[in-house]
C-alpha cells in the first residue's frame, strides 16, 4: 500500500483529503504544518507528499526545497488556496525551480488529483 503524507494546516480540508485518499486505498499520514511534515517524512518515508503552501512554522515552498535537498527524488504535489500576491506566479516559480510537476488551486477536482497522484507515483 502506497503511503501519502498530507501537509495541510486547515483541519477540515486535511480531514477531507485523509478520508478521500483513504477511501481510494492509500495509507495517509497528516501534518498540520511544514515543520511537523518534514519530521514525519524523515520517520516514515512516505511515497508521496501533498503539501499546502501557506502554512505556519514552515511554509510549502520551504518544505519542498528542504525535502528535495535532503531526499533527492522525493515525489511531491503542491496545492494552494491562493492569496499572498500572485498565486499563479508563485506556483509557477516553485515548479520552475523544483521537481514538482503538479500544482493545484483549491478547490480542485478529486479526479484531477488522483490522476496526478497516479502519474507521480508511476
Amino acid at each position, binding site marked *: 500500500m502506497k503511503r501519502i503524507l498530507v501537509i495541510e494546516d*486547515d483541519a477540515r480540508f486535511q480531514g*477531507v483529503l485523509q478520508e*478521500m485518499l483513504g477511501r481510494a486505498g492509500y495509507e495517509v499520514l497528516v501534518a498540520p504544518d511544514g515543520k511537523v511534515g518534514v519530521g514525519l517524512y524523515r520517520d516514515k518515508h512516505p511515497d508521496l507528499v501533498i503539501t499546502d503552501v501557506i502554512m505556519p512554522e514552515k511554509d510549502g515552498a520551504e518544505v519542498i526545497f528542504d525535502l528535495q535537498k535532503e531526499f533527492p527524488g522525493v515525489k511531491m504535489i503542491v496545492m494552494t488556496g491562493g492569496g499572498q*500576491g500572485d498565486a*499563479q506566479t508563485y506556483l509557477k516559480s516553485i515548479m520552475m525551480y523544483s521537481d514538482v510537476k503538479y500544482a493545484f488551486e*483549491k*478547490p480542485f477536482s*478529486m*479526479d484531477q488529483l488522483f490522476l496526478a497522484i497516479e502519474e507521480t507515483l508511476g
Partner: protein
Amino acid sequence: MDKGDPLKILIVDDDEEDYMIIRELFSEIKEQNYSLDWVSDYDSALETIGRNSHNVYLFDYRLGGRSGLDLLRKAINNGCKAPIILLTGQGDHDIDLKAMKMGAADYLVKGEMNAAFLDRSIRYALEHKKMENKLRMMLQDLQKSHEEFKKAEEVILKSEVKYRTLFDLSRDAIVTLAPPSWKFTSANLSTVKLFGYDSEKEFTLKGPWDVSPERQFDGELSSRKAKRMIEKAMNEGSHFFEWDHTRLNGEVFPATVLFSKIELDGKQQLQATVRDITQSKRTQEDLEQSEKRFMDVLHSSEDAILLIDDETFMDINEATARMLKYPNREEFLMTHSSKLSPLHQPDGQDSFDKANEMMKIATERGFHRFEWMHRKKTGEDFPVEVSLTPITYRGKTIIHCLWRDLTEEKKAAEEKQQLQLQLQQAQKLESIGTMANGIAHNFNTILGSIRGLVEMGLMEVPPNSRINSDLKKAVKAIEAAKELTGKMLIFSRDQKQALEPVKIQTVVQEAMDLFKASMTAPVEIRQNINMECEPVLAAPNEISQVVMNLCTNAYHALEGINGRITISLDEVEIDEGMARRYPNLCMGKYARLVICDTGKGMNSVTKERIFEPFFTTKEIGKGTGLGLSVIHGIVMNHHGEITVDSQLGKGTTVNVYFPLADNDVNNTKGA
C-alpha cells in the same frame, strides 16, 4: 604865594629873648606875612606839632634838658610833614650835619641870621618840601604803575599759559614752522604723540620732509612738494591738502594738512594743523568696497533683486530681466511698471494700489514678504515671493526687493499632493488586496473541503440518480464560487499584460516618485534619466515593479549607512563582446536602467544566488525571497538581461537591459 595868606610858623625856644629876636626878624620881612606861635618846652612843642596846624617849624637846638635834635627825631617819627629848620649856635657844625641827616629842612646859625636869610630859608624849605612831596607822589605813581605793569604782566603770562595749554590739549596736531629753514618751531602734545616722538624738543629738530616718506602718494619727492605747499600757503594765506606722513617708527599714515600764515614775533610764519585720516580713509574705502560688494552681489545674484526708489526701479540685476523674459536690464528698466503685473492680483485688488500698500507696510515694519503675481514679457503670469526691505543707500532710504519664482515650488507642491493621493490610493488598494487575499485563501480552502466531500458523495450514488445530478450542480456552484474569489484577487494580482511600445523614462520617473514617497527615512537619491530614450516594448506595470523592487533592495542595503542611491536610464549599443558575455543580449540598441547604491554590498556566494526564488538574506517576515526572481522573470519576458556587480562594504550596482522597440531581438526571440 599870596601875601594876604600868612604862613603859620611855630617857634620852639626855651629862651624868650631869643624868640623876641626872631620875631623881630620876621617882622622885617615884607614879601610875606607870617603868623608866629611860640612854645618853650619839649612836651608842649610835641603836642602843638601833633595838631599839625603850622606850615614851618623852627626848633632851637637847646631845649632845657632835651635837644632840638631829639624833638626833630620825635616829630619826624610822629609823621610831621611840614619842613623843620633847626636853630643852632655858632660852630655847631656837627649838629648841623646831624640835623640835615635826620630830615631837617635847613639849619640857621643864631647870630648869623638876618630877615632875608630867614625868609629865603623858610621859602626854600617849603619849596623843597613841595618838591619832595611831588617827588614822593611821582614815586608813588611810579610804584603804582609798576604794580599795574606787574599785574598786566601776570595776566599776559596767564593767558599765554592758557593758550599753550589749549595748544597742547588740542586733539589736532598743531605745529608752527618758520623761515628760512622751515623747520618746526613748536609742536603741541598731539603732534608729538601722533608722530611717536618723546618730546616737543625732539620734534622741533625736524622739518616737514623729515617726518614724511621719501615720496608722496603721487610720486613727487616729499622735500620738493613740501616746499611747493609752503610757498602756496605763504602766497595765498592758507592751503589745505592731503599728505603722507611718517611716524618715528617708520609707519606711513595719510593725513590732511592745513597751513595758515601767521605773524609771530614780527616774523611771517606758518601754522600747520595735521589730522590723521587713516580711520576716515579706511572708513571711506570700506564704504566704497561695501558698495562695490553690494553691487557685485546685486548683479551676480541668481535671485531677482531690484532697488526701488520712490516707486521707480533704480536698478535691477540680470536675473530680474531673465525671470520676466526681458532680453536685458535696459529694456526692463524702460518698461512701465504696469506692464510687469496683471491689472489685478489673484485676490481681486488693483495691482498698482496693492503694490503701494505693500511698500508702505515694508517701510513701516522694516520688512515685508508676500506673494505676488507678475507678468512676463511673453504675457504669461507667474507667482513670485516678494521680500521688501528698506535700506539706506547713499544716505537715502530705498527699498531692496527680492523676487523668488514660485512656479516650480507651486508645481512641486501640487505634484506632491498628487503623489500623496496616489500613494494613499495604492495603500488603500493594497490593504483591500491583502484583505481579499486572506478571504480568498480561506474561502478557497473551505470550498476545497466542500468539493472533496461532494465528490466523495458522488462516488457513493448511482450515476443517474437525482442525488447524483444535485451533487454535480453543487460542484458547478463551487466552481462559480472559485471564479468569484478569483475576481476578488484581481485587486492584487498582476494581470499578464501585452507588451507595447512604452517610453519607459516616464514609467521609471513615476516609479521613482512613488518609491521616494514610500521611504520611511530619507536617503540621498540621484537621478540621471535620459528623457530622450527611445521606446521599449514593455508592460508599464512590470517595469514599474522592477524599479520599485530594485530601489527597495538598494534602500534596505543602505540601512544604518549614510549612503546614496543613483538611478540612471540611458540608451546603449550592445557590441559583440557584450552579446557574447551575456547570452540573453543581442547586438543592437538597448535601454539600460542602472540602480546603484553605496550600501553594504554582498559577497560572491550571495550574489550567485540572489535570483533563486525563496532565497533571502532578510529576516523572517521581511521578505518572501521572491522579489528578485519575479524581477528576473519580468526581465526575461521583456527579452532583456539583468546583471549585478557588488562589493562587500562598498555597494551594489544592478544593470537592467531592455531592447528598444525597434531592436530586432523582439522579433527573433518572440514573445
